[in-house]
């Protein structure tokens, strides 16, 4: 719509006029950044028109958003149906990752330093206390939202064909989340964590066949030095090794695994035809004969 600068320059420019033109152009760009080359290079799509197609493109061409389809069942955006718990859980996972990484900057997983580091975080690292609290509370919250998500999925029967597998992935994610939280519990190396983990791992001691105190364990030559618990703790008691192992599981191994499964989970949501509903109700009278096996 704006006039072509070249013409004007021809019309009789002089440097001054030209400069004015440049400035004008600049202003134009600032007014409508979408038009600039920079903008276009970043957001591959033209956005000057907000018609359905552009918006769809907007979603599809955005690495963060393309998990979503371009358009969805009109009622699926109703909070009453989704409760948004899955999304929140994921968001919390992100929060935990960020805060966790930051905390790692001030934490040494060694017997002598761990506890002191927590005190250090609590007392003089700027925002250390805030971060630590956020990390812990987000972890708790995540478990809650996870359970509610699961609850909703059951209520709406969303685990049924074709989503059975995705449900299984979900269950695995649940377990992983619990493990994440559990391994994190030991890291401050205080009585709370220490005994929680001791109690927790003592159960492993009683694993049938594989635990030194489990049924048939001793008969199979299981001792506190070669059973499951030993493998978990890297020793017969909760000590330096256990701390280190907890740390590595908590900060690297489990998050990676969880991330992979999350990927699968989301991917499957898309592939299984988006979220299950709200679907039109089906009537008892409409039950078709079972599909041929």
């Amino acid at each position, binding site marked *: 719509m704006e006039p072509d600068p070249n013409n004007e320059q021809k019309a009789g420019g002089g440097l001054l006029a030209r400069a004015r033109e440049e400035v004008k152009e600049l202003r134009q760009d600032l007014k409508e950044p979408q038009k600039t080359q920079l903008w276009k290079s970043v957001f591959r799509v033209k956005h000057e028109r907000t*018609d359905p197609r552009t918006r769809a493109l907007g979603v599809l061409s955005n690495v963060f958003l393309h998990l979503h389809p371009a358009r969805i069942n009109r009622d699926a955006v109703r909070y009453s149906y989704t409760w948004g718990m899955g999304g929140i859980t994921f968001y919390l996972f992100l929060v935990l990752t960020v805060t966790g990484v930051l905390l790692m900057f001030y934490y040494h997983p060694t017997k*002598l330093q761990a506890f002191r580091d927590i005190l250090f975080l609590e007392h003089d690292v700027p925002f250390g206390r805030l971060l630590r609290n956020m990390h812990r509370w987000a972890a708790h919250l995540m478990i809650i939202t996870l359970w509610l998500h699961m609850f909703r999925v059951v209520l709406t029967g969303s685990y049924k064909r074709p989503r059975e597998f995705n449900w299984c992935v979900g269950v695995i994610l649940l377990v992983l989340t619990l493990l994440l939280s559990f391994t994190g519990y030991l890291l401050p190396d205080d009585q709370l964590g220490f005994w929680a983990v001791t109690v927790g791992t003592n159960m492993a001691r009683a694993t049938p066949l594989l635990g030194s105190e489990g049924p048939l364990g001793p008969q199979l030559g299981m001792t506190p030095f070669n059973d499951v618990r030993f493998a978990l703790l890297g020793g017969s008691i909760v000590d330096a090794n256990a701390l280190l192992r907890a740390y590595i599981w908590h900060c690297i191994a489990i998050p990676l695994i969880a991330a992979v499964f999350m990927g699968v989970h989301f991917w499957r949501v898309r592939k299984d035809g988006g979220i299950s509903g709200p679907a039109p109700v089906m009537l008892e009278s409409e039950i078709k004969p079972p599909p041929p096996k």
Partner: protein
Amino acid sequence: MARDVNPGADRQSTGPDPIVDKSLSGPLLIAAFVMFLALGWALYAELYGGRPWKNHQRRFVSLYTSYLKKLRPRQLAAEKAAFASPELQKLEEQLTAAERSAGPRLSEIDRQLTSIRHRLAILKEPFQDARAKIAALTYELEHATSANGKRSIRHDIEEAKKGPFRVALPPEDGKALIVPASLTFGELERRFAECKSREAQLIAQQNEVTSESRELRRKRNDYLSERLVGLTQQQIDGLLRKMNEFRVEIKQIHIEEAGLVERCESCHLGIREPVTMTAADMGGNPLFVSHPVKDLMAIHDPNRFGCSPCHNGNGLAVSSVRKAHGNYEHWLWPLFAKENTEAGCLQCHFKDRVLEHAPVLTRGRDLYELKGCAGCHRYEGVDRDADGVADVRKEIQNLQTRQKESRLEMDREIKNGDQANSNEEAQKHFARAENLRVTVSNIDAMIGELEQKSKFLMQDLKKIGPNLKDVRLKLRRNWLPVWLRDPHAFRPGTKMPKFRLTDDEIRAISAFIWQSGLDGPLPVPQAKGDAAKGKELFETRGCLACHSIGEGDQRIGGEFAANLSRLGEKANYDYIVRWVHNPRERTRPYCPHEKRDLGPEDYSRHGLPFVADPDHSSCPNDGSELQIQNMTVMPSLRLSTEESRDIATYLMGLKHEYAAYPADVSYMEDASLAARGKQMVGRYGCASCHEIKTLEEAPRIGTELTREGSKPMEQLDFGLLEHKARKEGWYSHRGFVERKLNDPAVYDQGREKAPEDRLRMPNVQLTQADSRALTTFLLGSVDSPFRGEFRAIPAQFRYLPTDQQRDLQEGWWVIKKYNCMGCHTIQVGQKSVLSALPRYQDPDWKEQLPPSLLQEAARTNPGWLARFLSNPALSEEDVHRNGVRTYLAARMPTFNFSPNEVRILVRFFEAAAGQPNPYIALKLEPLDERERLMSRALFSSQAAPCLKCHLTGDERHDRYATAPNFLMAKERLKPSWTARWMLDPQAISPGTAMPSGLFHRDGDRWTFAGPTPNVFKGYNGDHVQLLLRYMFELTPEEQRRLTRAVPTAPTAATRQSETVSSGVRSR
């Protein structure tokens, strides 16, 4: 909405679409806003909420600055005053004089220096340049490969060295005209070196010339610094500057090797300031006071020890007071309360009996022994003798087993030797056998040693309470139940605690005690004595150092032993006489092996006389070591029988006339009651303080308290009060201990318990201060603080006493055990009990006070000291007197120390006086005839009337003498000390009657101040040394000769006058 409908769908709309047409901006706005506010809150919490120290530091800066400003003028005035003082003026003059005298030479040196420096400056530039060039060439040369390459470089170097270097040097004499010279590098270098060394010389000279004035200046500064209390002007200014540059930040001490991080000073900013600040100084804010005990800080530098190792609390925490002081349930080392701070000392000094800087703690330790806590509650290292005995017995057993083994081994070796098929092999075996034989005999020796030791230990074994085997011989029967009901009522302040006993319990116990008593041999019946004399004796012989007499505000004397005010109501005269005469005399020796008391019958069976004393201390039946004396710390005062009678009579006269006792106590003979009584006695652990028949080996009944301070909270039984305690905030070790001490039964409140399950701890009489002291002691008794993963006092902080320090502490145990401080001054600033008695306030009686022992070992020969301690009479036959100071009414008692304790005490005194150990007497060369004449003359001259006061062994004279006999000096004293003493006794013990200034300095020798006899003409030796040598080879007859020479002993009157006039009377 056109764009939301699929292409082709009809466009006409019906009603708004609840999803598409609804705007969310409202909720979004609110949510975003809330989120933003929350962030704001977080920022506040981070920057101010959780950072109290920021405000504290700002407040401190302003307060401190204003305080310093106030201080400044005061200090200024002080400085002025100091400057005004004559001494300083003198110093100043000397200083100026010195500087003036040094002035010309200095200026000369300076002139030369400047010229030299000038020359150097001129030389330096070309020289260094040339040197650099040559160095570079040399490098090339070294690294050149081809022969002719090298050659050419060499050539270059030569060239370079030739120079010529043109330098314009001013001539040495510094005249203005300048002669340009052209030099080769060699010359250049030479000159440069010359100048350098010259410069060095000059500086040295300068140094040496200024040395005197520097010395003086130092003196002046020292003088000022010691005259000036507090800070100098520029120090204050410095501090003010510091306050201006003050940075608000976490102040932290980080002790790498100890893993300690202390941030206490982020709020307690005044602690290490050089000024002493009270809360008042800092606007009434106790937060900023400086550390109350600067000396302690000096010994325990915070930069090395931090704060929390002593004070506890959480050194890392700075976000709130509660957290920092660790006053929350999850911090196991909460800050010690102000009144119990000294508990911290014990964590490292747990082996020390007496801590100079911790009076409260030390008092706590004293009480723990004094009140007999140790009887029921084991505390590592407190009951040393008992533990010692046990250890020794164990050790002996081990040795015996080892011995047996080596015997067997030996036989085996010999057998092998016999059967060996080669000669050298046999030799080998026999050699081994030989060694083993030696080992065996060595072990024999060791065992012998140990048996000795155990014998000594048994001799030192004491009980807190009296021996109850003697009740029948000692006590009135019907007094016992009254006493048991409430000892504190009968004898306020007694060690005997009040047990909460029901009537029939009391009956049972007294019945058992009474029936378990020995009924013979009875003490010899004694005639009555003279009470008045007895009173005098009692008050002068030193009984009051431990015992007290009189009730209420009439009470005088020590708290160490019983108050005897109502003795007459309970005791049996004959027994008291025996007791006063020798408390250690035991009715029947006890055999720990047979676990019973031996009577005459046992001895007669073996045809032995019934005597038990250190020489006859083994059991006639099985030869095991006997307990042959009463296990009391009360010593024998070596009183004659008459004196004992007098005292006993006096004491028996002390009673309340109105005191009424139950008439019928026949139940005390009831055997059935006794059985029950024995249970009770066992249950209440009476046997841990008293000797009771059949219960000699009874175990302790209380919990061990060695680690009380670090017991996990839930192991402290608050009973039903736990939740009350939590609410009221005394759910802590401190709260527990304090309340327990004040009312031992407190944690039984509301519990349904059978009588035999109730808490047994009796009520002990404690003042507020005392219970505080004990609490402090117990709070400090923590599990070895050097272990533990997170918070451990690092091993390198551990207190490792030197030998002398260890000797000191060892000694303190004994000294406290026998209450030596009742009569003597042993610690600087400590006053003996006697010195506080009204009688000794009179100046004439002050003379009668037992000597202060501050420098004892510096004065006396350790060998002699040992002898004196084991027998203060210094003689076997006439024992009813003091060994050294026969003129003292108070008597150094015989404690029957075992050689162990004697050794410990001697070591203690040597350590206290910093004497080398062992002591080697230095040899004095003998006097020749002339010298003997001279010293004899001086001794007997009127000018030096030594013998007026010093004992001579002549009855008439000694009545008035008030100083030790010279005859003793030879073996008693150390010559070096004696010399110092003769020169200036006042310096060694202020207030002594021995006059100072008897000698004056004459060149490099001391000469007698007064007129010297003619024999001295032409003698140029040291008079002090002369007298010393004379004194140390004095013989009785020599002394007799002297006494004959001296005018007859003065009458009391003259003595008095002299006392006043010259006061020439030594201690």
